[in-house]
């Protein structure tokens, strides 16, 4: 039971059902803070194993197992699960890699596919019963993914254009009037080296954070307005109506979130492809 209790986030909920004096318990940032299930002591620091960590591990296992099942013994004429996963692979190849990078993109399809399905699975955890928490709404997860992407496109840029050449191409894009460079150089350097990975991480995090908060607000409000129906007379009617509307909105938002989850995974992968593409060839 203690194990199960730790699956509840740290948000303080003091309201009991039927308590009519209770103010609306608006969910805040507290619903994203979790009690550690166990802690691993490493001497220097302790690693807390919380629900998001476990969900991330589960996502990793799901993605790995699905792809291993589909492609461990690939057949020329696909059957069963290979059919399904191949559709996903071809989607990433045709709509992201080849669309952005052309033929060069084929080398990066495995990486982009992994990123896309890993991010998507972590996002989808938001609406899976029992899990019901988007892993990517903990800032650390998108940050790590963005750092990996950053390392890869910086490395590829230095490999393909030379260390000096890469930074020269970022700082001084050719074909500009000379007077614009004092303005352009700092902006270009800042945007390529710092703003790109930061916005990549923040975009994913903020979308999932906002979506989860929105669903929680309407779920809590459905519960709270049903609570109001303990009153007598007109307040009770308003309570029932409001509760029904909130519940309906929760369902609609869940559908909308499904769309956003896929879209954000797609955008994350698309931007990764764009960054890699800009590292392969200098701007001209």
């Amino acid at each position, binding site marked *: 039971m203690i194990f199960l209790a730790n699956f509840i986030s740290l948000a303080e909920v003091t309201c009991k059902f039927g308590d009519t004096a209770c103010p609306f318990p608006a969910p805040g940032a507290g619903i994203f803070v979790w009690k550690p299930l166990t802690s691993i002591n490493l001497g220097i620091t302790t690693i807390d194993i919380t629900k998001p960590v476990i969900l991330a591990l589960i996502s990793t296992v799901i993605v790995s197992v699905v792809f291993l099942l589909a492609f461990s013994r690939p057949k020329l004429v696909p059957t069963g699960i290979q059919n399904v996963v191949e559709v996903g692979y071809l989607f990433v190849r045709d*709509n992201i890699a080849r669309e952005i990078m052309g033929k060069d993109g084929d080398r990066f399809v495995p990486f982009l596919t992994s990123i896309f399905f890993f991010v998507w699975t972590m996002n989808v955890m938001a609406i899976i019963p029992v899990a019901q928490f988007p892993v990517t709404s903990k800032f650390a997860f998108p940050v790590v993914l963005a750092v990996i992407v950053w390392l890869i496109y910086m490395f590829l840029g230095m490999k393909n254009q030379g260390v000096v050449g890469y930074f020269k191409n970022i700082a001084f894009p050719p074909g500009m009037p000379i007077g614009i460079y004092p303005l352009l150089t700092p902006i270009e350097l800042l945007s390529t080296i710092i703003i790109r990975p930061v916005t990549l991480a*923040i975009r994913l995090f903020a979308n999932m954070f906002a979506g989860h908060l929105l669903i929680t607000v309407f779920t809590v409000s459905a519960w709270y307005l049903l609570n109001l129906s303990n009153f007598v007379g007109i307040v009770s009617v308003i309570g029932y109506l409001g509760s029904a509307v909130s519940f309906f909105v929760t369902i609609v938002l869940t559908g909308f979130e499904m769309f956003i989850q896929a879209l954000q995974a797609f955008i994350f992968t698309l931007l990764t492809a764009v960054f890699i593409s800009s590292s392969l060839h200098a701007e001209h």
Partner: protein
Amino acid sequence: MSILAEISGSLGSIGYGLAAIGPGVGIGIIFGNGVQAIARQPEAYGVIRQNMILGFALAEALALIGFVAPFVFGA
């Protein structure tokens, strides 16, 4: 000096409202022109959609930063 005006309550929500103005206009322009481009040249749908979503993502990020900032830096 006496206080002329005071804001109480959630300042973050006002900040988000302000932060949403620019991206709102931007996203409108992006999708408006994107749909127009697709209508003019339906065969270029793939390329236009990629660039539309890319621009949308870049503009949307600003509004989302405005949404998250109050939570991150405390209300």
